[in-house]
């Protein structure tokens, strides 16, 4: 046996476990069938097309379609029309999920006030968001093509309503690589009930699974199979990994395949992930003021915990953090249920912005708060006698989202909807336009970040998408 070769490899891996930045990091991905040279690191940090404004993204996904007219886009006229049908001219050709266009209007009981330099109107359920009005860009003119949840979520995250395409986070990772040596580059955190989209929302689709979102779980193992089995101490696990490494090394010296070195490397990263995850999840070094700001500790709030985790992750180099919070799907009892959702989410969302700002991270971190579409001004009553429990149906036109951080012109409102929040009057921003803009902030021309599959170059924005210049700082 070649003893020298083994010694050399030992040294190599010692330097590697020492975490030197010069060592290529991440999962090795080779022989993908596209002829990539073996042992090329698919997650090595890469430069985008041009200098990026944002280096990382936190996407606060509000699943189920939050009601824009009850939160971000005041429509006082609805009160006057309450209980009446809208003029047919307005609702002609309208396609709705559950109700018919003739359904009666539901006035909003919410009160709105102006906040920040731009006089951004926000409802009384969002006092904390109001306090960051100058740090967000509110878009009231979002448009989706989909008015059902699963296709809508697919369009939001993959650019297209059918299953099978890569998620935005996968594209970001594919384009930029990872900056973390110890954590996955694309992380998913969830709170509330399950989502319609499930894993399709963060799947790498036809991209290699290297770029898939890794779910950090709220209970049990934070990452699947992260924790050592019962009865296996860290030391025992390390001894096992040493044996695996040496045995792989012996085989490599015989077979000569570089791919074996790639596998050795994957095991080292797995070990580092095992060692660094507990530190990531440990909030004991966070100040009381920080915990209070997020509202952590009073009563369990997984969304708040996830917001703080998101900050800790981007601090540690995670490229794309996706929070999925479900559900805002208020088909019934909207006036009772909406305050419950805002109570859970308003404070932590705002705290995240403040916290990133005070740490100087907001400059190059993009934060997006968005649902997959919005809701109708018309009421949905599952039964006529349930007037108190009325809700709103899905509406893909003119919903509201906000953005903050890296490269975003904040303290402004973009877009205008009609008096009923049915249609967009000014500055329509299609989902694909939003995606083009997010890609731009990350330093990409969205038409040029592509991947060849089934004989075609695919991209996040399908065949659409225009950069929205008004969003840019």
């Amino acid at each position, binding site marked *: *046996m070649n003893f020298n070769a083994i010694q050399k490899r030992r040294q190599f891996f010692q330097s590697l476990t020492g975490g030197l930045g010069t060592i290529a990091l991440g*999962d*090795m*991905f*080779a022989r*993908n*069938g596209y*002829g990539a040279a073996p042992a090329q690191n698919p997650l090595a940090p890469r430069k985008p097309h041009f200098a990026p404004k944002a280096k990382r993204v936190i996407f606060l996904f509000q699943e189920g379609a939050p009601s824009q007219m009850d939160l971000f886009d005041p429509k006082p006229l609805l009160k006057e029309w309450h209980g009446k049908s809208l003029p047919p001219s307005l609702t002609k050709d309208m*396609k709705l999920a559950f109700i*018919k266009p003739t*359904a009666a209007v539901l006035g909003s009981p919410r009160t709105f006030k102006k906040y920040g330099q731009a006089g951004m109107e926000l409802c009384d359920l969002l006092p904390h968001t109001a306090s960051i009005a100058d740090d967000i860009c509110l878009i009231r003119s979002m448009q989706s093509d989909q*008015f*059902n949840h*699963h*296709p809508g979520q697919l369009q939001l995250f993959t650019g297209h309503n*059918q*299953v*099978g395409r890569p998620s935005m986070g996968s594209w970001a990772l594919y384009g930029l690589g990872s900056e973390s040596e110890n954590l996955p580059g694309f992380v998913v955190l969830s709170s509330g009930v*399950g989502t*319609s989209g*499930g*894993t399709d929302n963060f799947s790498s*689709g036809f991209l290699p*699974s*290297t770029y898939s979102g890794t779910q950090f779980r*709220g*209970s*049990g193992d934070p*990452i*699947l*199979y*992260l924790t050592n*089995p*019962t*009865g296996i101490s860290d*030391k*025992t696990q390390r*001894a*096992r990994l040493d*044996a*695996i490494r*040496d*045995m792989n090394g*012996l*085989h490599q010296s015989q077979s*000569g*395949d*570089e791919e*074996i070195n790639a*596998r*050795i490397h994957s*095991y080292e*990263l*797995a070990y580092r992930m095992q060692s660094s995850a507990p530190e990531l999840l440990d909030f004991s070094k966070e100040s009381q003021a920080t915990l209070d700001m997020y509202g952590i500790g009073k009563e369990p709030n997984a969304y708040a915990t996830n917001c703080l985790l998101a900050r800790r992750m981007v601090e540690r180099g995670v490229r794309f953090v996706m929070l999925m919070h479900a559900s805002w799907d208020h088909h019934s009892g909207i006036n009772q249920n909406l305050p419950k959702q805002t109570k859970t989410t308003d404070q932590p969302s705002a705290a995240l912005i403040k916290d990133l700002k005070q740490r100087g991270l907001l400059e190059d971190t993009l934060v997006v708060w968005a649902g997959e579409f919005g809701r109708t001004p018309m009421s949905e*009553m*599952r*039964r006529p006698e349930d007037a108190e429990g009325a809700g709103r149906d899905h509406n893909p036109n003119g919903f509201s989202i906000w953005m903050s951080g890296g490269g975003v012109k904040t303290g402004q409102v973009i877009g205008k909807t009609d008096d009923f929040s049915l249609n967009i009057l000014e500055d329509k921003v299609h989902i694909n336009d939003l995606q083009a803009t997010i890609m731009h902030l990350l330093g990409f021309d969205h038409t040029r970040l592509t991947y060849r599959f*089934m*004989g*075609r170059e695919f991209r996040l924005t399908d065949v659409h998408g225009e950069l929205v210049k008004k969003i840019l700082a």
Partner: protein
Amino acid sequence: MSKVQRPLLALSLASCALLAQPIDFVKNVEPIFAAKCYACHGPSQQVSGLRLDDGASALAGGYGGKVILPGKAADSLLIQRITGANGLKAMPMGSNGLPAEQVAIIKAWIDQGAPYPNRAAAKAAPPQSRHWSFQPIRKPEGNIDSFIRAALAKQSLAPSKEATKPTLLRRLSLDLTGLPPTPEELQAFLNDLAPNAYEKQINRLLSSPQFGEKWARHWLDQARYADSDGYEKDWARPWSWRWRNWVIDAINRDMPFDQFTREQLAGDLLPNPTVEQKVATGFHRHTLTNREGGIDNNQFRFENVADRAVTTTSVWLGLTAGCAQCHDHKYDPYRQKDFYQMYAFFDNAEEEDIDAPLPGETGLWLRKAAEYEQKREALIAEYRVREKQPAWEVDMLDAFKNPGRRTDWDLAWDCLLKLTDGGDGGKIIRKPVARRTTRDKRILENHFIRNYHFAIGQKAYKEIKFDELDKKLKDLESAYPQLTQAYTLLENETPQQSYLRIRGDFKQLGIPVEPDTPAFLPPLKKQGARATRLDLANWLTAPENPLTARVTVNKIWQELFGQGIVKTAEDVGVMGARPSHPELLDYLAAKFKDEGWSRKQIIREIVTSATYKQSSEARPELTEKDPENKWLARQSRIRMNAESIRDAALFSAGLLDLSKLGGPSIKPPQPDGVTSIGYARGTKWEVSPGTEQYRRGLYIHFQRTTPYPLLMNFDAPRSTTAACRRLRSNTSLQALNLLNDPVFLEAAETLALRVLREGPAANKDRIQFAAQLVLNRAATAAEVERLSQYLDQQRTVFANEKTLPVHPVPNIERAEHAAWTGLASVLFNLDEFVTRE
């Protein structure tokens, strides 16, 4: 009007004078067309089906219908296009339209009746292509090794020596059955010095029932097989496996590929089809189903039918048709019309669930059927179902005809369309009761009982205790033998007209289309007036079809060498990769189709070749000259599939349950919460009882929105589109999966026990025994030394530990068991273990 008139004002007097005269096509119009339009809409190309140089074609129009309405210039699409009116993109592409003078001339010509000269137009060139894969297959002289060696010689490369016998048998076993050899099988092979010892192994493995399981998996990938609907509700499909049974059986029997094709695409159209032939049509029942409220059923029917056309084109023809759903293919001669002609084959098929009992089922069922029916009828009567259902039907039909009156009834109707189990509720309820089949009635009755609350509200529903009845009926059903069901396709009795969809939008109907095959390939032979799926299947496997045989043998080659002769197995079109060995591909394709379409024969020929038997060890000069191993101067090292990795671990440990073939999908243990990311906290994952959970990976229940983690970690396809090849990534999540997944830990613990019980006494011999079970070869001295060292170290650790990572087993010292479990886990985590050398 003013918009159109304005440019006229700018016209010169001369042209005004001209407009008053009769316009001559050849003199006045054709020069404009020739300069601006013919490049795309002339004799050589007819983009969007439009040809302007020939009168008859021009007046017939394009995919969207007529563009010239003689005498009505203002209404003619051609004018709207060349002016960019009505928000349409102006033509020619990239311009702002034609100059006003030219528009005026064309307009005047149309208003004068658009007279074309009476001339014989040059016949539109039939679409052709010199592209290699569209040319006829001709069988060249030679054999696998001669083609490979010739190419190697050109590259000045030498082939590798034959792999060692243990490597060879492990390779062959994994490739043919997906399982490693047992130590006994390996020993028998090592002892067999006969010249045909290897051939004997091939025969044994080709006739093993596990052969069908292994090769069925590749076909399942292409059929986008899954055990659930996909999308939000992602309902389980409890009978998907019935089609999988058919595939395993067909492959084990080596059903010729032409018949394999016919039965799956058109089994229902064969004369007097058997149940099995109908079951085969389940190939196209793996399309996704969206049951989310408010979804447009027409849209999803359209998408499913389109998916069937895309999948067929991809799997059999190796062409990417998806582009042509919206427009003519940019690179291949695949026009949008070709796509919708393929679409039309499937547009006329309906989904139908049928009774598909397995052998031995029917008798049991018959014996108890009367009793079951009696009990069911008693329950139906007790809860007065039949008194309520007719009124509900009347109200439902009223809601269907007059939507918008009451949201609750609208919702009830929508739920009938989405949530009917086992059939199309909307269709059944519209049939007069007399015309409903027994199955129809049962489906509708079950739906009514389960979903009546949408119409009357939960409170009233609970008062009449239909929830209780529903549960009782379900319990009754599971207490009695039921017939296995199958998902099939059935041809519509009255053909419906299919239409091209403009820009792929299901709402925008273009020209009518008839089922037909792409124009650039050999013509279709129809048996009747209207082409059917059966004609399509026959055409796909006709001797003159240049694609099916090439594409199919290429995928077989890919499984045996890690990549195809054409690397892009899903695309042999213009944008796909070129074949590395075109003659070899044709040689195999010709043999395949001319010698009975036998899958086993082709596999036998490939695995017998010296090329296949080579060592996979890297050689320095090859790493430099041929890093992708395109020229095959060595075999490839291939990371095994997700399913095979689990199978091999369970098999080495002696846990794998091979006692039966086929059957329902299984649920092995998975961590809590995997399914909760899905809608409404997802599906129940109840671990399969007894040894069921140790059945092979291809039987693992595939829940589309929350798949079994191992499958995703190791690159199993997501079953949304046909997967003609799998990617192979190498990630740290794979490392964690093998290190810490209880499934692999249990395998390690069991393997350790096996070593302690069945293995020899001495440590080093035991290590050899374990290596034989896992790696199927003897360990080297260095390896034995390293493993001994590890074992000793583990013994020291566990001697002082209180919590040990193994279960107590009588007569086995627990710390020793723990140490050997660690060693077994090391073996399961080796690159070599997850690799086919």
